């Protein structure tokens, strides 16, 4: 065990030195995680993750299933708070502010860090109500017209408005899978987040719907910091500027996406990229 931990520390140092300094200067750091650990009861799921996530870029987390990608993602907006027995250690800072500060309002944090889930999960309400829900509970709209405007612009940003403008009052659950997922993105955008976390957002979608979402992610990058978990290396290569490789609860290697895929430093990363770890 100790040996593994030592090895992880070493690889992290090597990752840091491997970072392209000009890249880091271009994009200010939005999120910083230091030594993040997670225990589910007695079981440790994350063994000290440290990573910097830059602003207005897509960072993807890859790695074999069960390696802790979702767990780490859920630490960022404190979704693990809702899981009984989950214990989070280390620090995560959003713009230098500790996310786990006891004085911090989780509700406000989740308005700043939106989340899109693996399976599209619109509320069983109308399309309009789905998008309007966030602004309502956070008190973001001053009146009906204000709210209408937020709903329309959020649906537009999620590339869904044209498809649903005639049936805003129909149930969101009646849309196709890809449309539902874009509705969930619109719902997240509606509260004006700075960061959007996406946990395998395309894993339940067909290739065409996936392509549409990937295009959307590329557009959203202009205005949001995006972290995406994906089990598809091709997807990571297509949509992300930075990639982090997780394995068995450790962050093995992290860097510019191109470098990770073409020139991985770590042996495990190489094996995974080559398809030797599944």
């Amino acid at each position, binding site marked *: 065990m100790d040996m593994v931990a030592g090895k992880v520390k070493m690889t992290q140092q090597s990752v840091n030195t491997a970072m392209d300094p000009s890249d880091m200067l271009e994009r200010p750091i939005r999120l910083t995680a230091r030594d993040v650990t997670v225990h589910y009861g007695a079981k440790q799921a994350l063994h000290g993750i440290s990573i910097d996530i830059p602003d207005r870029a897509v960072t993807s987390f890859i790695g074999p299933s069960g390696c802790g990608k979702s767990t780490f993602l859920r630490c960022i907006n404190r979704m693990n708070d809702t899981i009984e027995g989950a214990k989070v250690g280390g620090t995560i800072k959003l713009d230098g502010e500790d996310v786990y500060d006891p004085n911090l309002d989780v509700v406000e944090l*989740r308005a700043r860090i939106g989340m899109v889930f693996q399976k599209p999960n619109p509320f069983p309400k109308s399309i309009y109500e789905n998008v309007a829900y966030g602004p309502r509970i956070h008190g973001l709209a001053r009146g009906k017209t204000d709210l209408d405007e937020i709903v329309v612009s959020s649906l537009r940003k999620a590339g869904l408005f044209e498809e649903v403008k005639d049936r805003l009052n129909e149930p969101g659950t009646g849309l196709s899978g890809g449309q539902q997922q874009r509705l969930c993105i619109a719902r997240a955008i509606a509260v004006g987040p700075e960061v959007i976390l996406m946990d395998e957002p395309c894993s339940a979608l067909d290739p065409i719907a996936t392509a549409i979402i990937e295009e959307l992610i590329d557009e959203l990058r202009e205005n949001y910091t995006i972290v995406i978990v994906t089990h598809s290396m091709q997807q990571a290569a297509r949509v992300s500027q930075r990639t982090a490789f997780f394995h068995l609860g450790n962050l093995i290697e992290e860097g510019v996406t191109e470098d990770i895929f073409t020139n991985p430093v770590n042996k495990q990363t190489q094996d995974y990229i080559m398809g030797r770890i599944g």
Partner: protein
Amino acid sequence: MSEATVSTRPISQDRIRLRNRRNAADFRLRAYGIAAIGTAIGLLAILLFTLVIGGYSAFVQTHIRVDFPIAAENVDPANPAEGNWRAVVSDAMATLLPGSQSPAETRQIAQILTSNTQFFVRNAVLANPDVIGGTLTLDVPAADIFDQLNKGNISRDTPEANRRVSDQQIGWFDTLVEQGRISTPFNWGLFFNADSRFPEIAGLAGAITGSFYALLVCFVISFPVGIAAAIYLEEFAPKNRWTDIIEVNINNLAAVPSIVFGLLGLAVFLQIFGLPRSAPLVGGLVLALMTLPTIIIVTRNALKAVPPSIREAGYGMGASPQQVIWHHVLPLSLPGILTGTIIGLAQALGETAPLLLIGMNAFITSPPGGVMEASTALPTQIYIWADSPERGFVSRTSAGILVLLGFLLLMNAIAIFLRQRLERRW
């Protein structure tokens, strides 16, 4: 082409025997199932059949049209309430049948009518005082034995000595039939009269009102408490030994025989709190104790059935636990909660034993005016009537059960309607 390939496989006798045995087993299993369902339906049909046969005659009631001369000497127009109503009735009876009768015969003729006739006449006159000095024509319920005679439940072929009506009384009754004075309309009294010693005017109004109040109390207490308890246990309570113990106990409570709750009600609500005996309030409290575990269990199941992805979506949007519950989880689980609650209440409606223990089987001749007034309930009223020997009460017992079943059916129909209505939205 495929036939050729199939036929190349040799069909051994063993395989055929195996297949036949398998098919026979399938067939037997299906036959057992059909037989079981057939038995259940048959028993249910027998139950309903006997109830309808025994009870249908209670849904009509023999009435006799009588002209009551309201003489001023018997009823003072200035003070009609104090009139001599007994004399009014006997005067009317003396002239009801042709031919001269001895006073003893007149008294016997008067027994053709229900014993409460004088109160019917009194109430009719009080409602319409102008009739004093004239004649009042009323349809009066016939006494039970004549009601049964008219319905054919007392056979004229039975020897007179073994019959509860004499040949002479039958003769009188037949004369009234010839005069066109006998009618057999729908027995509204079954629903609008309270209990009485006389079956011909005994009804379920008191029992229905009492059951209504008791269920109201039961609902008002068990619904909010049950839902709050279920929400706490399901959404907030830590999973530890204490909540495990609570959970086991709630499940056990749902299986406790209802008479135990009656004993508890007797000891706690009557003896310690000093609440009045036979009151629907106490009945409702006891029924609430019984219904509470049911509501907690169905509510927890309904909450559990809400997909976790909906909760995640809510939390992910920054909703607080309370908002997630109110905005998303409760609305989605409401159909299940309501259905379970109504079925729990339907169970409570039919519950008899605990109500007997707290005295809701008293003889009470007026519907309760509130939850603190003594009353019966539907099942206890049926219980009282089932204990009475009169023929009229025997059929009323079956009729009462039919009415109770009708209410249960109605409640279940409402539950189904609500579930479909609320679930159809999405």
